[in-house]
Each structure stands twice: as structure tokens, then as C-alpha cells.
């Protein structure tokens, strides 16, 4: 199965810009389904980005983050070819991770 994580990390000068998209319903817990029943909250809680043995970004998300959530940030360091690891965990305990190469 394809990964739930898409990541684009591009090094330019001494900075690496990271953009990611994660496939997740991010159900808020306030929406009803076709039968009129509330869809319980189901959302990612923590996303972590690691480079060179160091956490470079941690996102803590509530149910107000959009479906298939997007994220963009930049960190100093990171060269073309370096590994960038992304991992997430949601409120039901599901998780996924991916290691991408910086471009």
C-alpha cells in the first residue's frame, strides 16, 4: 500500500524547505454522516520531522486541521541526499512513517 505521507524537502543554501501532505480524514467530531449520526473525532495528534538525529519540527494537531493535512516549514542544515524522517500518530493509535531524501 502506498504511504500516507508525501514529503518534498528541498535544500537551498543552508536552509531546507519541507512541505508535506498526509492522507488522513481528520474527522472533527462535529460532522454527521448520511444517517445523521455523528462521526467520532479521528485526527492526527502528533507529526514529527527528524534530520541528522535531531527533531527539526513537531506538529501537534487538533480536529480543526483540514482533511489530508498540509504542512510547510524550513530548517537550517540539511543537504541534498540527506534523510528526512516523517512520522505521525493519530488519536486511535494508528501511525505511519516515511524516510525521504532531501532534494
Amino acid at each position: 500500500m502506498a504511504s500516507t505521507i508525501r514529503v518534498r524537502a528541498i535544500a537551498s543554501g543552508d536552509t531546507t524547505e519541507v512541505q508535506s501532505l498526509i492522507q488522513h480524514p481528520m474527522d472533527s467530531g462535529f460532522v454527521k454522516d448520511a444517517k445523521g449520526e455523528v462521526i467520532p473525532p479521528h485526527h492526527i495528534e502528533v507529526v514529527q520531522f527528524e534530520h541528522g538525529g535531531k527533531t527539526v519540527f513537531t506538529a501537534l494537531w487538533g480536529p480543526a486541521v483540514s482533511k489530508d493535512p498540509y504542512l510547510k516549514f524550513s530548517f537550517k542544515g540539511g543537504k541534498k541526499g540527506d534523510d528526512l524522517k516523517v512520522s505521525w500518530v493519530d488519536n486511535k493509535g494508528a501511525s505511519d512513517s516515511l524516510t525521504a531524501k532531501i532534494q
Partner: protein
Amino acid sequence: MNEFGGVPDRGRRIILKSAVAGGLVGLGFGSFPFPAFANADAKDWPADAFKQKSEADALKTLYGKSAEASDKVNLDAPEIAENGAVVPIAITSTLPNVTGIAILVLENPFTLAAAYKIPEGTQAAAASRLKMAKTTKVVAVVESGGKLYSATKEVKVTVGGCGG
């Protein structure tokens, strides 16, 4: 103790932890007896902060203090959201020693939308997409040198992002 000082929900956390551990084995983590770094861990999630219904309570729970307005916090949000389900929001700051960024959507059922931990070497900037139930003030909060600074902008929402 997580660094936001939020009190986690013990029982729930244990269940999540074991689920996460199971997930790691499933991902083939067993081949790394000494993993270099841990994966995203649900115990880092400040559950209480995400339950608050006002700006003051959310910030107090998350950071233990309140914020003052600053023009060094830049909040880029649309004046009129094309759809409340997906509103692009970008925050940047020129403040020094930024350690955290938080986004609050005041009219949502729960105020805190997202919080970011910014370690040294990472820029004080984050962009994401948020749901907004109705027209609302959005507050960007930046933690710098142990203090909180904020910028506020109103986003008009004509098609709400929580109605399905």
C-alpha cells in the same frame, strides 16, 4: 511531564502507547534494536489544551501564560475563505529565539487548532490548512524568549468547514 505543562489523560495514554508500539513492530521497526530516534509519540499531545474554549484558557493550558500583540508576528490568512473546510494559514515571525507557534480559531468549538514546537535551527514559520466553522478571529501566537506574542486577523467564512 510534557513541556507544555498540560496534564495528560493517563488511562488513554497507556492504550495509545501500546497501540503505537504495536504499530512500530508492524512497520518493521524490530530490525532496529536501537532506533536512532523515536517516532511521533501520542504522549506529546497536549490533550487538555485542545479542549479549551477560549483564547486565554487555551494559552494558559498550553504555555501557562498569556500573549501580547506584536507586529513581529505575521499572520497570513485570507479575508474571505473560499471554503471553511480548507483555509490556508501561514505564520512567520522576526522575533528571536522562537520555540513555539500556535494557531487559535476563536469561533471553533475548541479554540486551539494547532501548535508547533520549533527547535533551535528551525525557522519561525509554519504554513498549514485549517477548518473554520464560521466567520472568526484567527490568532497566531509565537513563543519567543519565554514570552508569548500574537497577531490577530478576521477571516470571513461563508461556507463553514464543520457542517460536512
